[in-house]
């Protein structure tokens, strides 16, 4: 039998790839799981170096341009620190007030299970796909687990920040509420290989999650969370809450007559989310508009609580508590 020539082989390969394009991704996991362990040692260190480079470039572009500007920024910084300390006290007392009144604080923390730290090795190679490749811990085997991360702030020990400082962030801050909301959701484990795991970020276009919107208001007496709604990913750094109706009051809001959400409202995962069993912050609403597809309904743009460009380590949620041996 004659073997096909190079041109025929090419057309055979094109045909095979055309068929493979329409196969569900799970049928090709085995092939990809072969590739991932090779990618990590090859590109892991350069990826870290790239992350360092990007952070350095960000700091360099934000540097003060001259000595006068530097002094002025230093004064401004000290003034802001004083204001921050005052706000911190006020904010802490408000949080305690809310926590006592609503008893929701315990809902935010994981009631059982454990968090498994895992290093971020790589991001996805394609611009519109939102994924991470993780160094898989040895005892972690389950797909459909959730990945959480501490909220990142872009100041560290070089800016006199230490563990014992009370970190207060205004409600409209990008970084979120560091003290109250201990963890932010990042994504879901999609595929677990021998030594690596792939995470689908919540901003991926194939990601969907049941969430609730929460609005913190001073003197709020609301005792329940808002109605459940659906959060879908919209590509890099973008998510959207869809199909909100006018009477759908966010938890913590005083009246049902207002819009279903406002800019600055927080989005939480639902506590009935499988394998999670906790409410964790997902993001913050940045825009609210009426839906063009469904008149009378609203949709909201949501910014993730975590800047995935800076992610270096995440925690995987394992909801199963194992008996000690």
């Amino acid at each position: 039998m004659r073997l096909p020539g190079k041109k025929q082989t090419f057309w055979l390969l094109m045909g095979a790839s055309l068929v493979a394009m329409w196969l569900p991704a799970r049928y090709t996991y085995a092939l990809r799981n072969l590739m991932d362990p090779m990618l990590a040692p090859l590109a892991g260190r350069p990826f870290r170096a790239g992350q360092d480079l990007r952070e350095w470039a960000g700091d360099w572009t934000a540097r003060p341009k001259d000595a006068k500007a530097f002094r002025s920024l230093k004064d401004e910084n000290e003034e802001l620190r004083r204001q921050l300390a005052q706000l911190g006290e006020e904010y802490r007392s408000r949080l305690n007030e809310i926590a006592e009144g609503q008893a929701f604080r315990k809902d935010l923390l994981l009631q059982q299970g454990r968090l498994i730290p895992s290093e971020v090795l790589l991001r996805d190679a394609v611009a519109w796909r939102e994924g991470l490749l993780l160094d898989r811990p040895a005892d972690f085997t389950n797909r459909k687990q959730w990945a959480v991360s501490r909220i990142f702030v872009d100041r560290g020990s070089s800016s006199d920040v230490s563990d014992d400082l009370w970190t207060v962030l205004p409600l409209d801050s990008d970084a979120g509420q560091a003290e109250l909301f201990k963890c932010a959701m990042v994504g879901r484990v999609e595929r677990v290989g021998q030594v690596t795991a792939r995470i689908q970020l919540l901003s991926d276009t194939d990601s969907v999650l049941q969430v609730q919107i929460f609005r913190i208001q001073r003197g709020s007496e609301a005792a329940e969370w808002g109605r459940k709604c659906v959060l879908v990913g919209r590509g890099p750094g973008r998510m959207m809450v869809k199909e909100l109706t006018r009477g759908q009051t966010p938890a913590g809001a005083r009246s049902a007559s207002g819009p279903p959400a406002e800019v600055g409202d927080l989005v939480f995962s639902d506590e009935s989310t499988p394998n999670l069993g906790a409410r964790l912050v997902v993001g913050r609403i940045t825009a609210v508009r009426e839906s063009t597809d469904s008149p009378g309904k609203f949709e909201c743009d949501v910014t993730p609580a975590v800047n995935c460009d800076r992610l270096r380590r995440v925690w995987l949620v394992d909801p199963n508590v194992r008996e000690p041996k």
Partner: protein
Amino acid sequence: MRLLPFVILAVVTLVLQLALAPAISLTSASFMPQFPLILAMFVALYARADVALIACWSLGLLLDLSSRGPMGGFAFAFGLVGLGIVNIRASIFRDHPLSHFFLAMVFGVVANEIVCLREAFGSQLGGFTWHHLFVIPAGNAVYTALLAPYLMLLLVRLRRVMDFTERA
């Protein structure tokens, strides 16, 4: 075309794609260059036609394997890119930076659109918007096209190593 130098270059471009591209991406990873596409362009411009087609396809497969999403999308798209460039290369100035710029832009848009449209058709959630379908692929292609002339300058120096010494 020699196999070993091609494999080494393919691995290097993949590492660049995974490590450098997110670092130099614009607007929170929306626009990033595609280094394997530039290598595919180089191979399609200078290698023997039948070998170039398979090499382009395998570069696409490599990108598919290192990403999530449906398998085969980039392999098919890069195969078409190879086919397109092989068919027009006799009628263009293949050493000219402007040719590299326009080839990277046109074929970058084509390759990204094929994969994007496939994913949009397969998406149950309707998460794909005009931004995904047109702005991101076009942005990626323009970014790749801006880098292509410089990287092609380097790659063209490797023609002898790759055994592209004769006009294919």
